[in-house]
């Protein structure tokens, strides 16, 4: 069936129901409001402006901009409405609104409609955002792949040297055993020892790599421990120092160990704590000048304990200090040093609620410290 035509005032009521402001430009640049004033528009206007002509350019920074386009559009007599696209702006009281403006010509009369976007703004936002979150994750993955590529390159490089050493020892041994060269038993044993040392180096490197990557995953595993299970930091220091003494002797280094008399339980697990200290101490031994002293110690406090390793070497140049504990910064690919050791130390310490740091040693050299919380009785 056919409805009777709607009264003219109906369209006005429809626009009011949509909370649209219908505005007509005046020659002096202000606007005349046709019909009811929507609440959101009132919130942008000074209180004095409610009745007379409206200065929209003064009320909204966005409209100030859009009206330039709108006026050009009205003057051009071009067909079709000109949309502003959604914009977000804060009213005089600090409330945020998402709005949209449309300039149109109806029977040669210029009109401006302003109101809430008719596309479902929030749904659109959700969709676009979901896509963007995916894009961010994709970027992250690419960065991670790039980093692992370089890492892989370095690992290969670092495994090559000890492998060459190992192969060299085995070659010499075979030549001896096959009678090509004369090889006395002490020399043969020496070759075996060299080969073993190279194999151990490779093993240590591989363990560090495994732990570094496992550490990222284990970050979620709670490490809170009861005091009975907590490792003794002092005992760990003693063990690690004992294991590295032969290496220290090779460079005529003195290792000065400073421990409190009793045990120092800390949060963590003994194997990783050992590996952490091993990393710090081998670094110190590497950089310490021959004949100097390396100091290793533990200082216990009420809620935490600090392990520290000091050497009298050159220290870390200030420009390198910010990158020290990062997994392998690009452009940092010095052979012979994958640069995972300190990273491993950091994530391990942080997983346990601790902290790691570097400072210049007073009087020259490097000082690395790890601060770990004391386990709390449940």
């Amino acid at each position, binding site marked *: 069936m056919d409805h009777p035509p709607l009264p003219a005032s109906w369209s006005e009521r429809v626009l009011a129901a949509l909370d649209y402001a219908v505005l007509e430009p005046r020659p002096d640049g202000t606007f005349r409001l046709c019909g009811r004033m929507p609440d959101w528009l009132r919130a942008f206007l000074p209180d004095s402006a409610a009745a007379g002509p409206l200065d929209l350019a003064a009320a909204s920074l966005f409209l100030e901009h859009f009206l330039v386009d709108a006026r050009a559009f009205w003057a051009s007599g071009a067909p079709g409405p000109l949309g502003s696209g959604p914009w977000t702006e804060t009213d005089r009281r600090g409330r945020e609104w998402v709005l949209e403006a449309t300039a149109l010509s109806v029977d040669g009369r210029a009109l401006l409609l302003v109101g809430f976007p008719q596309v479902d703004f929030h749904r659109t936002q959700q969709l676009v955002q979901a896509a963007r979150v995916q894009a961010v994750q994709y970027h992250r993955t690419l*960065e991670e792949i790039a980093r692992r590529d370089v890492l892989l390159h370095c690992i290969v490089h670092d495994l090559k040297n000890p492998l060459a050493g190992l192969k060299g020892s085995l070659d010499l041994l075979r030549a001896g055993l096959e009678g090509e060269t004369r090889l006395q038993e002490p020399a043969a044993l020496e070759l075996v020892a060299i080969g073993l040392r190279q194999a151990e180096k490779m093993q240590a490197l591989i363990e560090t790599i495994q732990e570094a990557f496992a550490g990222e995953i284990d970050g979620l595993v709670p490490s809170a421990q009861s005091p009975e299970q907590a490792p003794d930091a002092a005992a760990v220091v003693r063990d690690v120092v004992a294991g590295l003494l032969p290496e220290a002797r090779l460079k005529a280094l003195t290792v000065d160990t400073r421990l409190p008399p009793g045990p120092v339980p800390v949060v963590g697990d003994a194997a990783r704590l050992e590996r952490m200290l091993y990393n710090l101490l081998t670094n110190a031994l590497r950089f310490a000048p021959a004949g100097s002293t390396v100091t290793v110690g533990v200082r216990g406090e009420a809620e935490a304990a600090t392990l520290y390793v000091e050497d009298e070497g050159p220290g870390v140049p200030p420009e390198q200090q910010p990158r020290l504990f990062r997994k392998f910064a690009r452009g940092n690919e010095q052979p012979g040093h994958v640069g995972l050791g300190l990273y491993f130390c950091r994530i391990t310490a942080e997983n346990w609620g601790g902290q790691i740091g570097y400072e210049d040693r007073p009087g020259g050299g490097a000082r690395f410290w790890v601060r770990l919380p004391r386990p709390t009785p449940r």
Partner: protein
Amino acid sequence: MIKKKICMLGTSAVGKTSLVRRYVQGFFSEQYLTTIGVKIDKKTVDLDGQALTLVLWDLNGEDPFQRVAASYLRGAAGFLLVADGTRRLTLEGALRLHERLHDALEGVPGVLVLNKADLTASWAIEPARIEALQREGWTVRRTSAKTGMGVEEAFEHLARRLLAP
């Protein structure tokens, strides 16, 4: 009172909105709420006794889902070109966007901002890359909308350039 329009440009999720929020409102949120269209803010600063109102146009990010409308740039006195220092592609995206908007930005001073500097462990932009950009004429700043590091400095560096004769 002098009023200057500054546009925030860059690809999505690099921290344009967060930088404005940090600068104008002084806080940071971890939550990501993407900007659709444009979001307008303003802040009045005092530069050596000279009051200046910065009208900040925080534009949607340029990506396959939305493009930055060149018409938004009309009247811009300056811009911050923002990249996320932990995602190298966003730097290339920012430079491409700048290239695409070349006509609209002709002669408009800008600062290249490498944001999220607090995420040192995943920082992906090498010093050599930054030096190369500086040689090309870019003013480069590292910022963190999260900690506030360098944010005020970046905006005010640009503001001073706008006032310089």
